[in-house]
């Protein structure tokens, strides 16, 4: 029973991530952020969700918010290389 619950939670997380990506690719940024936030409600340690929100903020020229999200992603997953590269670029450090 416990195993099944865990599977359901993981599947819910994944479907919100995929839906968020779909919205992002269709330029529906607010909806995309809302989906990624739902992922974080289920699993606050989901680094990809932080990264995705950061990327949306960056593409919306909201650089401080993007930096904050990338930092959170790195706090959860310090070896997340693409996030490290993006954050370094925003701070002004060349990779």
């Amino acid at each position, binding site marked *: 029973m416990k195993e099944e619950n865990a599977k359901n939670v993981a599947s819910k997380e994944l479907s919100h991530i995929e839906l968020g990506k779909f919205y992002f*690719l269709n330029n529906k940024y607010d909806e995309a952020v809302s989906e990624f936030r739902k992922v974080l409600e289920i699993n606050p340690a989901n680094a*990809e969700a932080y990264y995705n929100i950061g990327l949306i903020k960056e*593409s919306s020229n909201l650089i401080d918010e993007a930096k904050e999200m990338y930092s959170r992603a790195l706090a959860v997953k310090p070896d997340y290389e*693409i996030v490290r590269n993006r954050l370094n670029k925003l701070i002004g450090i060349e990779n």
Partner: protein
Amino acid sequence: MFFKLRNREVAKKTKNAEYCLLRCKDGVSVKKKQFAVIGLGTFGYNVALELVRKNIQVLGIDSDNGIVNRISNFITQALVVDATDEKAVEDAGVADCDGVIISIGESIETSILATLIVKELGVKNVIVKSSSRWHSKVAAKLGANTIVYPELEMAKKLVDTIVAPNILEQIKLSKDYNLVEVIAPKEVWGKTIRSSDIRNNYGINIIAIRKQIPIINESHNSIDIKEEINMLPGPDDEINQNDVLIVIGSEKALAKLKKIEDN
């Protein structure tokens, strides 16, 4: 003393070597651009490396043996030379260069003497990195062709980004006109250039629009953004929420644009 003697020999050898010339396929010799960088501190070191990246031959000069050793593998020639020793600077081959960048920051006196020596050697293009207003004035009196004051320029740029965060980049074109990269103001989101009437409303001309296109990065299977630039956009091109406009306008018109963003 040992280094000076050694380097004079190296400099002479260098002058005679093929270092100055490239041979094209048709056999015609073409001179590659050569620059000397005198003073290989942080600024000079990076200038030298950037010049090499742009395919320019670089002669780097510094009085510090350690710095010269460190850069020697990355530039065309690196020499330990006292920049205030006229004969040593001449022997290094500085006079043959298309331009000289003097980036001696720690001693204004040394920088000024080096400028004088290089000008007397007949170098046509002398660029001096200044470290104060007085330094700039003296370098100008000595005939420096360009004076850069990176600390002051960066300070101004930094303040601009703090005061007007929507202005991403600003290049002065003339006394009154600037080229500016600005985040598209809310008022024009979803409008075409024609319907936004941006030229009449703001007194600026859009010369390019930079867009962030959402994509899937196949290698990471994650979302990513790709930058696209629409050069010379037409009147029917649309301006969207996250676009960055590259515009030309007067200081007055651009100030109006900044104010709109503040409100």
